[in-house]
């Protein structure tokens, strides 16, 4: 939909009070999102995966902690849909459980990191001066520190059941670049009339940031949060692969891939189900993020 068509549509639906509700920004963006093929595809795949991760374990007689001592390293069969691992654990149950954990970690880490990026960037850009200097230094420092190293050092703290702490640490190393962009955009937003007007009317700075600045950055932040999900999932996988992330007895896709890669040559099912699902998940999240970006800013599409 081009801009002129949109205006036409707005005019047509706008004046009549009894007609359908006027096209809100949300509805326009949703419409554009589902009009694109990659948006539909990514959303559908993601929905299926989430449904599978939540409801899938209910259909299997095995729990992820169960061991079948009559079947070690068996290929997929009617009893074990994805086969069994070296210890006799059901790969189907473990993979779904791992996917649930990975999805949860990815979503939460992305939310926390985007919120952090928005706050730090908006505060630095709005107040400038010393606030900006301190926050920008902090951002630079975290950019320079090797995230993998710090997360790995902290790994003894992420013992069993401590995964929320892991999520927080993961988020702590994902927000820097976005916060720099947010800062730049806040500085330019601050010059706009509506922010100036609010300031001269005596609206407190906190209220300006939360009700005028941040809502105007929402499109950037939403897209960023989506893409952060895939970044968080990939980081989590890599850390867990080396034993620095999710700790046993809990499983994630990373720990499953690590275990599976040892037996992958003669028992491919221990590796490829987890690896395949991980790739599909990240791919779907990336597709959704890309489609969202196009939906928020249709003019950007042509240059990409």
């Amino acid at each position, binding site marked *: 939909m081009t801009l002129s068509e949109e205006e036409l549509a707005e005019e047509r639906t706008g004046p009549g009070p009894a007609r359908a509700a006027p096209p809100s920004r949300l509805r326009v963006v949703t419409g554009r999102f589902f009009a694109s093929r990659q948006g539909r595809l990514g959303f559908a795949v993601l929905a299926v995966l989430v449904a599978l991760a939540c409801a899938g374990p209910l259909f299997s007689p095995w729990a992820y902690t169960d061991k079948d001592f009559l079947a070690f390293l068996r290929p997929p069969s009617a009893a074990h849909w994805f086969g069994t691992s070296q210890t006799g654990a059901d790969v189907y149950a473990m993979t779904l459980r791992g996917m649930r954990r990975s999805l949860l970690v990815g979503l939460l880490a992305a939310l926390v990191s985007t919120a952090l990026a928005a706050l730090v960037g908006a505060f630095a850009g709005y107040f400038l001066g010393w606030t900006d200097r301190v926050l920008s*230094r902090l951002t*630079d*420092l975290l*950019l*320079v*520190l*090797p995230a*993998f*190293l*710090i997360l*790995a*050092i*902290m*790994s*003894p*703290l992420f013992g069993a059941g401590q995964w929320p702490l892991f999520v927080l640490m993961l988020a702590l190393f994902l927000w820097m670049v976005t916060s720099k962009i947010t800062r730049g955009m806040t500085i330019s937003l601050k010059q706009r009339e509506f922010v100036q007007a609010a300031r001269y009317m005596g609206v407190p700075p906190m209220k300006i940031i939360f009700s005028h600045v941040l809502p105007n950055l929402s499109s950037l932040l939403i897209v960023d949060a989506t893409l952060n999900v*895939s970044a968080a999932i*990939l980081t989590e*996988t*890599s850390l867990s*692969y*080396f034993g*620095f992330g999710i700790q046993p007895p809990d499983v994630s896709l*990373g720990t499953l*891939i*690590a275990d599976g*890669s040892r037996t*992958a*040559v003669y028992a*491919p099912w221990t*590796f490829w189900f987890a*690896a395949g699902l*991980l*790739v*599909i998940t*990240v*791919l779907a999240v*990336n*597709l959704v993020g890309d489609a969202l970006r196009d939906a928020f800013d249709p003019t950007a599409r042509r*240059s*990409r």
Partner: protein
Amino acid sequence: MAGFLARRLLGSVLLVAVAASLAYLLAAGALDPRANYADRTPKPPPAVVDARLTELNLNDRTPLLRRYLTWAGGVLHGDFGRSVTGTPVGEDLARRAGVTFRLVLLGLVCGSVLGVLCGAYAAVRQYGWFDRLSTAAAFVLLAVPVVVLANGAILAGTWANDQVFGHRVLLVGGEYTAGLDAGFWGSLLDRLRHLALPTITLSLGLIAVFSRYQRTMMLDVLGADFIRTAMAKGLSRRRALIRHGLRTALIPVVTYFAFTTGALLTGATFTEKIFGWHGLGERLISSIFTNDVNTVAAIACLAAVAVLCASFAADALHALLDPRVLDARVRGAG
């Protein structure tokens, strides 16, 4: 200009110092070298363990601040302390940096050159079959984590050895065959056979990123006036695209290249670990498992230096290719 550079340099040095100190304090606080002696048989007497740890500046009974000052004093003199086994950290890391360099160099060159070419070609033939294919491939590759890619490469290599070549052509694990005596060409071939799979792993990811990046930049440039002018002047489309289009589109990509190079120094961790190359990245992981505080801090310091050098190099290259940047910066800095 000199003042601007000096101020930036000072800021960077401070940033490295803070980052390295923070990494040391974190590592010294979280890692426990004493645990290394706990499950040795026969169990060494506590006094001996204490003496050894103090000698290595790893004793957790010394106050953290004093340990930090000893370490920082050493670093200022270029001494990164000693590892848990008593070997100097600096020497070990210097040797390993060489290994990492040999591993990353070929992958980086292959990845960036092929990526740029793919992206440029895809942009020129926008929405052609190559564009669609490379876009889809890049999307899939960007979703594959390095651990899966590396393990996939190993599996594919094993399969190719069995089914295609009939004997072991592609070697998995290590940098070269130990004790091989085959003259210069023989050992070079041996090294290449070891290098093939890790290089493919490294370059595939880079090709995906670089081709996306280059395609975007190239598309921006293609519609620009100066391309039209160049063609109006009588240059063929091919010449105009290569001489004027590609060169302009390369500017932001060069910036990205510098950052990638800096990050890959320690970022090849997964590739190194999985293919058994004894480089910096592998040391990073093993040093955490062996509670090797000094090595961890040294690697963190090195990584910070690498990132800042890369950002300097990126700025310099950018200014070199695009004179407007330099003018704006110098004026902006006053």
